[in-house]
């Protein structure tokens, strides 16, 4: 039990993610989290606005149930497995983030400057989170998948399109962190 309260090392985490992929395949389903966003849009009535959302969302209900589980998993990890502790990130990264204004680097799981309750009263903070979300949602559907569908499931099945998508993920991430962050933080 004590072991479960420690952060999971990469060599445990990676294989546990593959086991998630395997379990979903063995129950006859697919591994992909971002398609839930499309399903949720349809549930909320986006099917009245364009064809892309016209599909039987009930056929995707299983994935919404998985997502509900993921949410419960997050709750369990934080409440019972001391999962909300600060990751032991590289000390150079902590210093660099401190100079960018992220004083919470190295002391919390997420930057409080973006994920503390105060962010609800900061226009800049709200815009950063909202735009980040829009890019993730738009990009995931355009690319036909996200980290789970392409980087894990697609690459595990040796799909070239998934490799192109993952290269894209990294090009985008590097541009954001190295070229755009200095402009906004």
């Amino acid at each position, binding site marked *: 039990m004590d072991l479960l309260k420690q952060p999971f090392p990469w060599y445990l985490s990676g294989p546990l993610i593959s086991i998630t992929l395997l379990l979903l395949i063995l129950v006859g389903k697919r591994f992909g989290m971002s398609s839930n966003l499309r399903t949720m849009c349809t549930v909320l009535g986006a099917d009245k606005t*364009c064809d892309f*959302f016209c599909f039987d969302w009930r056929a995707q209900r299983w994935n919404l149930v998985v997502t509900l589980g993921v949410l419960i998993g997050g709750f369990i990890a934080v409440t019972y497995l001391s999962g909300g502790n600060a990751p032991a990130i590289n000390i150079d990264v902590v210093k660099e983030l401190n100079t960018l204004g992220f004083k919470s680097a190295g002391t919390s799981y997420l930057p409080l400057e973006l994920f503390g309750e105060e962010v609800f009263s900061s226009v800049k903070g709200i815009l950063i989170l909202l735009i980040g979300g829009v890019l993730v949602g738009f990009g995931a559907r355009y690319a036909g998948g996200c980290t789970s569908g392409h980087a894990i499931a697609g690459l595990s099945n040796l799909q070239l399109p*998934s490799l192109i998508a993952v290269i894209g993920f990294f090009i985008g991430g590097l541009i954001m962190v190295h070229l755009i962050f200095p402009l906004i933080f």
Partner: protein
Amino acid sequence: MKNSVYLLIGIFFGIVLLKSEAASWFRIYEMFHFKAFHMYGIIGSALVLGIVFIQLIKRYNIKTFGGAQISFVDKKKSIPRYLIGGIIFGLGWALAGACPGPMFVLLGAGFFPIIIVIIGAMLGTWCYGLLKNKLPH
């Protein structure tokens, strides 16, 4: 009955995502600075074992728990769709520090500002639906 299986798989995945720190904005930032092996180790080891699992399923024609045939559909060939879509996704992944799985993990973990990211992601998905036919695929 089936629903409880999906729920349990989700709970398992949610715990792994949070405890692995793959749902931490800081880990994503660190990854894009190449300052730690952690995230590369997670994705790399997940991939190696994932390839083994899928090869075994194909080679030994392993069936689902319900006895059904498992089929893998090849993704449609294209470059612009995956590259441009991927870059847009990557920009958001680095900015919000969360991809679609971790978004829901973090909501469950009580980091409520992530709701703004989730609303954004749904808006982004909706915008894609509206613009789909005008985009190169």
